[in-house]
């Protein structure tokens, strides 16, 4: 039996990753609600334009029409203080999850964003003092860890005019231009994006009492965070969006698949490597809907507790918005330096060493081929040939990569046959964020286990949404230019899913026999700076240890949001959320 979801009641960004669905341009808005009456009017106007999860007729002639693919999407979510500003009943608000009420800034200690030498108490007092002091009075110094945050997040106070209440996202398709009778892709967003932005500006003006918050805190500052895929100009195709982030690695591949997300005929293929591994007979199965959407049974086969009334939270979810800056020069420089000694020890060329080291930190080669499938440079080159990703024209190679990304080969693998990490090192970014079958309780650290299951992994999965930001070209930025990833996570329980992965798996290594070592890419490297690459003794080579890892990724702020269902939006707009 395939589960049927009420897709028209669920917001579209829960079910779809727009970036992957060919919406490579985005604008993220943050708004403040000054009074509840205006807020309700605003929600009433917005809810009619929301992109739901209803399936699209994907034919080109239906584009932009009802039932077809929209040219621009629209979604909305609220912080706890946004819900408070809309005067939701206390009984509903008080049953919201504590981490959602806290918000990201208050959770900096758990997320590893704060200075690691501060104790939890010191951190909390520094954040609270900063928050309660009127801005710019010079009496309370900004804590070091907050200095790098964008002003909108740094100065966001829970109560008062600086509080971020609403997140809105617009994802847009790009224009197609005709050249010599040939359609060519461009990186310019369709005009509907600016039109919809103007609609939002006008709406705020009409309603009065809801305003767009500039990102830098100044009245004429940027009114939205821009997101954009990285583009490459390819002969015969035009400017095509690449699936890469600014370090140059293909990203957003192994997103989980849950029950009801896809049509049954697509699900069979998509679930491979992206659901939960049951037994050799049953294979991969989609995860329970309740792991990602409230009001549905989750992997514990229970309805997770939610704030009353049920119809308010049902079909909603939680969103983590997190702006992650990428220090691209540091990354390039570090790889180049390490490649010298790696090349010498492993007797390979420096170019090969650089590609291999990068892959052995991430868990995939830069084109997305997993180490678990192609563990060595030679195997990788062979796989690229096999999938037509190299050797042809740039256009053919690119199309080969697109085809490969659509295949299940890119995500259909496990770690039970690589417990020692000879293929994919145990501490890689990939193995930390999605442990697959590595944490099966029956696994032993020094022997493979072909029967391992994904038991301890299936309650720690997160849906990856979002896009890169910054100059949409690879290799042009430095540490000081503004680029990185707008990292958005959707999950039913921020504490159990996102925060757990971030705290236990990104910022700590014991589950992977890596001691205190953090993720080589996302981890905080201020104290623990190592990443180990295990090597099979049979090869006669020693393991390689990457030491003195610099800080590659820095948080620039963000917050936790609730994504209401269409029903909930209507209840909020009408002021009829009734928990009794």
């Amino acid at each position, binding site marked *: 039996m395939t589960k049927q979801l009420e897709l028209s009641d669920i917001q579209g960004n829960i079910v779809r990753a727009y970036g992957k669905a060919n919406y490579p341009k985005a604008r993220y808005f943050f708004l403040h609600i000054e009074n509840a009456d205006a807020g309700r009017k605003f929600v009433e106007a917005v809810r009619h334009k929301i992109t739901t999860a209803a399936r699209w007729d994907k034919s080109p002639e239906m584009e932009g029409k009802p039932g077809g693919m929209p040219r621009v999407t629209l979604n909305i979510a609220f912080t706890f203080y946004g819900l408070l500003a809309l005067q939701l009943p206390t009984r509903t608000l008080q049953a919201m999850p504590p981490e959602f009420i806290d918000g990201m800034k208050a959770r900096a200690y758990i997320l590893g964003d704060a200075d690691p030498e501060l104790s939890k108490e010191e951190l909390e007092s520094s954040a609270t003092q900063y928050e309660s002091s009127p801005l710019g009075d010079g009496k309370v110094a900004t804590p070091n860890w907050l200095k790098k945050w964008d002003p909108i997040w740094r100065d966001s106070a829970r109560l008062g005019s600086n509080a971020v209440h609403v997140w809105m996202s617009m994802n847009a398709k790009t224009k197609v231009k005709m050249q010599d009778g040939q359609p060519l892709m461009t990186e310019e967003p369709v005009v509907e994006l600016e039109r919809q932005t103007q609609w939002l500006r006008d709406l705020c003006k009409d309603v009065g009492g809801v305003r767009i918050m500039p990102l830098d805190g100044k009245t004429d500052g940027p009114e939205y965070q821009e997101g954009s895929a990285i583009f490459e100009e390819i002969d015969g195709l035009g400017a095509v969006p690449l699936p890469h982030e600014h370090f140059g690695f293909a990203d957003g591949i192994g997103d989980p698949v849950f029950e009801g997300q896809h049509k049954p005929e697509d699900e069979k293929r998509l679930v491979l490597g992206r659901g939960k591994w049951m037994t050799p007979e049953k294979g991969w199965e989609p995860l329970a809907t309740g792991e990602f959407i409230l009001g549905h049974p989750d992997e514990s086969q229970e309805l997770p507790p939610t704030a009353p009334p049920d119809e308010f939270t049902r079909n909603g979810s939680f969103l983590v918005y997190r702006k992650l800056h990428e220090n691209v020069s540091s990354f390039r420089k570090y790889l180049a330096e390490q490649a010298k*000694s790696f090349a*010498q020890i492993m007797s390979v060329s420096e170019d090969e060493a650089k590609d291999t080291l990068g892959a052995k930190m991430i868990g995939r080669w830069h084109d997305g081929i997993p180490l678990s499938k192609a563990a060595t440079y030679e195997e990788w080159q062979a796989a690229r040939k096999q999938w037509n990703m190299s050797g042809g024209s740039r256009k053919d190679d690119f199309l080969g990569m697109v085809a490969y990304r659509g295949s299940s080969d890119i995500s259909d693998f496990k770690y039970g046959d690589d417990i020692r990490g000879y293929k994919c090192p145990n501490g890689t970014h990939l193995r930390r964020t999605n442990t697959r079958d590595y944490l099966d309780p029956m696994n032993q650290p020094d022997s493979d286990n072909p029967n391992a299951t994904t038991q301890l992994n299936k309650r720690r999965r997160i849906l990856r949404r979002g896009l890169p930001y910054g100059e949409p070209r690879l290799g042009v930025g430095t540490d000081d230019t503004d680029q990185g990833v707008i990292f958005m996570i959707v999950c039913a329980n921020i504490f159990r899913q996102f925060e757990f992965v971030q705290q236990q798996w990104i910022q700590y290594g014991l589950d992977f026999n890596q001691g205190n070592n953090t993720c080589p890419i996302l981890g905080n490297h201020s104290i623990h700076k190592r990443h180990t690459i295990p090597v099979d003794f049979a090869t006669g080579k020693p393991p390689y240890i990457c030491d003195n890892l610099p800080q590659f990724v820095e948080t620039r702020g963000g917050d936790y949001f609730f994504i209401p269902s269409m029903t909930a939006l209507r209840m909020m707009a009408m002021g009829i959320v009734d928990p009794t």
Partner: protein
Amino acid sequence: MTKDGAALPDQLSEHDQSQVRDAYLKELWTSARDEMQAVFENCQGFDRVSSADEFAAYIEKCQVETTMPFHDYWIEPPALKTMPWKLLLVILGLPLLAFAAGLLGWVGGSAINVFTEPNWNLDTPFWMAALGLASSALVIFGLIKYIMRFGANAFPAPKHGDLPSVLKSLYLQQKFAKFVVDNQAADPQTLHTGFGKFLQEHQPENKDSPSQKPGFISSSAHGAVRT
């Protein structure tokens, strides 16, 4: 022995153990009273605890006897003494055998006396059974005592489980990891010279110095190294 940080002997009598436990609990209450209250506040009877002595007494009341060892520094399973169970079986078997033979003789003889009236004297088998039963009971009682005492024997101290050795190994582990990283691409000659220097500087055979001071998590922390 009850002073905070003082070394403990390998063997502690039950009385000594209670004293050490109480001293530890009192110290815990004195230095972390708020935390203890937060941990135990919902436990039954804890509302009557208001001093270090009462806290120690409260925890003693909650104590459960186990045979779980509270340290895990064994690299290989400790050489535990095995019970001489064959000898124990013989010791238990003899009186049981006497009882069984006596009982058989007495019951069998009585039956024969009833049907064929040879009027055998059955005093010997009767007393044999009685004595066998009594001595079996005594032996079983004695064996239970013996086995329990055997089980209460302390586990042998692990090799290198003393604090100076543990600290030294923590210290060496960190220094050696750094040595490995620093010499990853070194040629054999440099590696050889470097390792000679390493041995000289860190003296793996010398348990006391250089080493990590107790109370530090990492040797790289300020003031953590004892030279």
